[in-house]
């Protein structure tokens, strides 16, 4: 990953100062630094429960962080760069993963909703392509609608997609016409994960491949004693990390180019872009197609690895809002920010509170009062804390709201602050060759 900008660095006081300074100036450093903080906190939280708990929690946090980062990057292209308010992220993810499932699943109805039985790579391509196609359709209203109305249309589209996939009538219709099914409200099982098959023969527990033997020998039973599913999970994280780097490089290149400049111009004032000869409508369609394709692929990598997908609750609009929060945390318009926003959201807002709540509840020796009123009336901070940690899931939304208000109010540019994301393929920070008329 490239250096984000070339601000002159203050003279570092120490080796550690130099290290943090270097980290702050490079996107990779920022991402790794964020991960290090998350890992340290998670390790502290679970240190007493043994290595498996630690590595397991790190695996969960990293997986969620990466999938949110992927989704946030895709959304950042549309919303952060171009200002297109797409609130249909969940829908495009559903299109991606469902299309993949329908293309790859066995045609035999005995195994649930039938599919076309094609290889997985074909399914992934088809899913990404279908999301891009639906994105192009969604872009048509985008050409005529202002931000708020586009938001309503995309939200509506996302719900139409979810409810269509949930409908058993649609399932029956597809089975009768093209011979594939969605599974309706019950959802469908996902194809075998090739990463799992890298470790286990035919994905069967207990029969490791030579590679699996090697890994399990060092980290699993034969060595550190980490549970095999966690190790396989880390293998999948490797795949996600590679794709994330791909997303990041692709979007950085798009942003740092004349194309990115047009996107920024459309975000700022599309009348100006139009008056300067830029075909705003065509560019908007392109952005929808690219962004929705990336969302579709993110959906495949995320939900395709979860064994089973179903329209509700997995693809509720809440998912879209989570992705928006990730982008907002990182600062819209910044790719590095989107990655960090995804990691921070997953760790600190999504998964973290539950874990912390559980751990704290375990430490408190008090009865949980049956209702909030009872907890309040007791006037006992321990009882209140017991109540809060016991009911962390609903309270999490309150916390989420507070964080969102705080960030929008105090750090509107995201946790990284104002970042210079140059929209050009060359350095614009100073005049090349010094220039002759410098003052």
């Amino acid at each position, binding site marked *: 990953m490239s250096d984000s900008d070339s601000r002159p660095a203050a003279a570092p006081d120490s080796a550690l100062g130099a290290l943090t300074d270097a980290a702050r100036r490079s996107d990779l450093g920022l991402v790794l630094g964020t991960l290090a903080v998350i890992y340290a906190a998670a390790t502290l939280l679970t240190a007493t429960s043994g290595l498996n708990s630690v590595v397991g929690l790190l695996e969960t946090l990293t997986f969620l962080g990466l999938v949110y980062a992927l989704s946030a990057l895709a959304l950042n292209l549309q919303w952060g760069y171009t200002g297109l308010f797409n609130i249909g992220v969940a829908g495009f993810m559903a299109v991606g993963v469902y299309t993949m499932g329908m293309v790859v699943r066995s045609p035999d109805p005995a195994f649930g909703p039938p599919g076309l039985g094609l290889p997985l790579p074909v399914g992934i391509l088809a899913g990404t392509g279908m999301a891009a196609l639906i994105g192009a359709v969604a872009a048509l209203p985008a050409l005529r609608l202002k931000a708020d109305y586009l938001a309503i249309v995309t939200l509506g589209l996302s719900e139409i997609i979810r409810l269509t996939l949930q409908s058993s009538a649609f399932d029956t219709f597809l089975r009768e016409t093209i011979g594939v099914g969605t599974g309706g409200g019950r959802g469908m099982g996902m194809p075998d994960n090739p990463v799992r098959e890298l470790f286990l023969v035919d994905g069967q527990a207990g029969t490791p491949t030579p590679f699996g033997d090697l890994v399990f020998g060092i980290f699993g039973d034969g060595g550190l004693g980490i549970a095999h599913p966690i190790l396989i999970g880390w293998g999948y994280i490797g795949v996600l990390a590679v794709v994330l780097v791909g997303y990041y490089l*692709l979007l950085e*290149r*798009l942003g740092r*180019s*004349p*194309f*990115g*400049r*047009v996107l*920024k*111009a459309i*975000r*700022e*004032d599309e*009348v*100006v*872009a*139009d*008056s*300067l*000869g*830029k*075909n*705003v409508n065509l560019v908007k369609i*392109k952005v929808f197609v*690219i962004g929705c394709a990336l969302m579709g692929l993110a959906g495949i990598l995320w939900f395709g690895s979860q064994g089973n997908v179903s329209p509700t609750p997995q693809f509720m609009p809440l998912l879209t809002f989570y992705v928006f929060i990730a982008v907002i945390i990182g600062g819209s318009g910044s790719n590095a920010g989107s990655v960090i926003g995804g990691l921070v959201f997953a760790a600190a807002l999504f998964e973290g509170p539950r874990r912390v709540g559980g751990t704290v509840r375990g430490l408190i020796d008090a009865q949980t009062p049956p209702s909030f009123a009872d907890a309040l009336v007791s006037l006992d901070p321990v009882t209140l804390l017991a109540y809060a940690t016991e009911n962390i899931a609903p309270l999490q939304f309150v916390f989420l709201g507070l964080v969102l208000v705080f960030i929008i109010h105090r750090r509107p540019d995201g946790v990284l602050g104002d970042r210079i994301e*140059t*929209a*050009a*393929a*060359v350095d*614009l*920070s*100073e*005049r*090349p060759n010094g*220039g002759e*008329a*410098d*003052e």
Partner: protein
Amino acid sequence: MSSDSNGPSDVADADVAEVADASEIADAASGGETADAETQDSPVEEAAKHTPTDVPLRVEGLVKQFGGVTAVDGATFEVERGSLTGLIGPNGAGKSTTFNCITGVHEPTAGTIHFEGEEITGLEPYQIARKGLVRTFQIARELEEMTVLENLMLAPKGQVGESAIRAVTPGLRGEVVEQEEALRERAWETLDFFEIDHLATEHAGNLSGGQRKLLEMARALMTDPEMVLLDEPLAGVNPTLEEKLLDRIHDLRADGYTFLLVEHDMDVIMENCERVIVMHQGSVLAEGTGDEIRNDERVIEAYLGEDI
């Protein structure tokens, strides 16, 4: 501040003379006709027949209605190549609507607009801009979160890197970077010309009103236009910058650019434009040199006896 010692009127006079030299034929042809003219319609039509290539912009019978309101009612005029033509009129005369019809913001109800011999009536603004007819805005519209350099580098046409595929494909990106380097150099030179090079890395949102006007003109020039439509370029600009802006406009006209200037300030138009079009109640009331306009009775009447 500026290196030349000429006052604004000196510069204007000198440049009018220069342009007269540069486009003698055009001036002689149309000037002769308009001098004899009693009505504005027939000489314009005559000129259109005789000097098509020297008339980049020709507006004929332009009508624009909004609901029941007729904002422009049969306006016909033309702009000669290399001229600085002023379009004036009282409030509600239809100047802005005419401007918006020419630039494609509004679709005319009737009438035709030709640019460089090609009909551009009803085209989208971006299509018109690509043909070399570019505009500025009355209230400067900067891309505030973009730097001054980014604002300028956005404008040029034919940027290969505006294709998403070329922007990201490793083998093709070399060409993009090469073009970007050339554009960056041109952007710096343009900033030098407008004497705002010290602002190059500022966000455009941090610029003052006058600097924004300069930036907007610089950005319009970066598109390589044949003709620039200026919508009240001096509105809200302090006198020092006003002089600088006018100097630049005259310099550019000397380089062969054509300008159509919409202004409500009579003095600005009279001092700087050698051709003036007066609009009133949606149609062209008079057309001619500053002196002709000054002495035109209908114009005086339309301006309610105001001293022009």
